[in-house]
């Protein structure tokens, strides 16, 4: 498939220390077209951020190890690139917005210097310092900060404004792919609404593809074209937003996730949460990772990891779909 901007095949990542090995990402496959927004949903420890860091090649050097798979970005294999070439991609073609705007800015650099920094480093078309300054004003305006504030330092901005600065930095070089790791989790709802609507407008205007990492099913519903649900390092369900939100066929974990959010429209007296906890990533279960918590567990679930079943664009990795109408087993 050549029309994909980025395609991740069978990626596995581990964190190894002397004592134990954490299986953070296990054999995941997904891809994005140009201009597409892809939602990566899951709870803490599902491997969402590890996936993002792997794409950026920012895994901790001492412990993080990619044990298998490939990442193709715009016709190049990211995992085989030397660090020097990767550096020219990072920040220019793929950039990332981190969860916490308070810690992702340099406190002793003014906002202008920080935004300009990325452009100076990736200065391909020999922009003059004058051009760069103009561009800084442009991106600041784009994210809704008056350029008159560009000489201010991060501590002079509020949380929502800081996150705008971070987004301005990420967009300064007009990347093809933007990875947003929980971009609004640290913000208040009204500020979150401002930031989300801004991200949506910018994405439509610039045609940037985006991986939206979040635990909030509401944000995914409002922004994403395609969605993958991660659990214990695996993608357990994937499809278009319609598949995930409208279809009646789901992985039991996805069903549990939806049952755990209080509904604004109807009054239910009790939520239907998922019992138990995420498995220990150093000792994953032998069969399906979700089996210890699954209300629909069968005998086979303890023994054998499930295959992937497909119905059109909708993929689910669960034994329940063996032999079900319209669902076909995917060949590995």
């Amino acid at each position, binding site marked *: 498939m050549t029309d994909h901007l980025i395609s991740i095949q069978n990626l596995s990542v581990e964190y190894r220390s002397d004592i134990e090995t954490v299986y953070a990402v296990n054999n995941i496959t997904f891809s994005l077209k140009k201009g597409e927004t892809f939602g990566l949903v899951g709870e803490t420890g599902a491997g969402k951020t590890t996936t993002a860091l792997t794409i950026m090649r920012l895994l901790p050097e001492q412990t993080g190890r990619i044990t298998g798979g490939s990442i193709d970005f715009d016709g190049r294999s990211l995992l085989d690139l030397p660090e020097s070439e990767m550096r020219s991609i990072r920040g220019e073609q793929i950039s990332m917005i981190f969860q916490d705007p308070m810690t992702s800015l340099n406190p002793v650099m003014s906002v202008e210097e920080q935004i300009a920094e990325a452009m100076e480093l990736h200065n391909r078309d020999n922009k003059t310092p004058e051009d760069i300054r103009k561009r800084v004003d442009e991106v600041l305006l784009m994210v809704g900060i008056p350029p008159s504030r560009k000489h201010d330092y991060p501590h002079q901005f509020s949380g929502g404004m800081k996150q705008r600065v971070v987004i301005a930095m990420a967009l300064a070089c007009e990347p093809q792919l933007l990875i947003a790791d929980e971009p609004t989790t640290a913000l208040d709802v009204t500020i979150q609404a401002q930031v989300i609507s801004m991200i949506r407008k910018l994405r439509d205007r610039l045609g940037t593809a985006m991986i939206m990492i979040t635990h909030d099913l509401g944000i995914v*519903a409002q922004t994403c074209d395609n969605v993958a649900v991660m659990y214990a390092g695996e993608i357990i369900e994937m499809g278009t937003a319609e598949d995930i939100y409208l279809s009646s066929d789901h992985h039991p974990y996805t069903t549990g996730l939806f049952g755990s959010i209080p509904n604004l429209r109807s009054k239910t007296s*009790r939520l239907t949460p998922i019992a138990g906890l995420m498995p220990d990533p150093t000792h994953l279960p032998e069969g399906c990772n979700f089996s210890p918590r699954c209300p629909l567990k069968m005998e086979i679930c303890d023994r054998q990891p499930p295959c992937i079943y497909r119905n059109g664009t909708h993929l689910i990795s669960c034994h329940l779909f063996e032999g079900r109408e319209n669902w076909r087993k995917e060949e590995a």
Partner: protein
Amino acid sequence: MKRTEPTTNAVPLLETRNLKKYFKVREGMLHAVDDVNISIPVKKTLGVVGESGCGKSTLGRTILRLLDATEGRILFKGEDILKYKHRKMQEMRKKMQIIFQDPYSSINPRMSVAEIIAEFMLVHRTHRGKMATFQRAAELMDTVGLARRYAGVYPHELDGGRRQRIGIARALSLDPEFIVCDEPVSALDVSIQAQILNLLMDIQEDRGLTYMFITHDLSVVKHISDEIVVMYLGQCVEHASSDELFANPMHPYTKALLSAIPEPDISMRNKEIKIIKGEITSPINPRPGCRFAARCEYAMDICREKTPPLLHQPVSSGKETERHLVACHLFRKGQGKDTL
């Protein structure tokens, strides 16, 4: 002052009257809680929502006298607890407990689970002897769904959900009547959040507890509360029953807040989001007038001059037991009753 009591319970369990908490800062006075009147009927849950910095946590802490109130009264079953002297307040504290947002920083990492849960009981000597106390601690662990095998482990060995269960067990250890839940599920994952919410609701039913539930998450607050107070910059701007508030929000800030929630429903994708411009302004030396005026699309001249009082408005469901109060000049006419 003419007062309109909710008809179900004559004396609310907890009530504040013109409660104020100001902090002295270099630039002047920070009005964290400014003239707040709330009342919580017995066995009910009052949700307090607002964005960071609106004073909701300060309100909770001032009510428990963890902070000294600047002015006003706090009535517990009709008695003003601000007048209580040290000894009497200490007795009172058994009846009022708090559950914090971050279960890790609110418990002593050098104590085992059983010791943490038993600590308050040992301080207040509620049981004769250590054996009885730890027996009670073990029972509390059953209540909150912590396996007894965790009695000897330390908090760092547990995950966030279990740590929050310790916090809940500890809050229950003195058999309180009133618990302030200060963002108890905000730090937890959704599936764990649902477990803890269900637990809090079960305990409330079993023990007849009254909650004040502080949160910034509107869907959570709708789920758990009977009544909801919306706070903005230290003031209560709207107060209504949970269903009423969501069915018929009146204050422009409440409306914006409700429309800002991203809903897990793709048919709402192109929903017009009412985006309010700007951010919460400084609560230091606020000028008279409505504090939301600077961000409000309906702001009129009067909004910048006079602080709008909290007035009764007609309830959309028409039920007499319900009430709906709004502090906004757009709804001046109302029923003209006194605040609360």
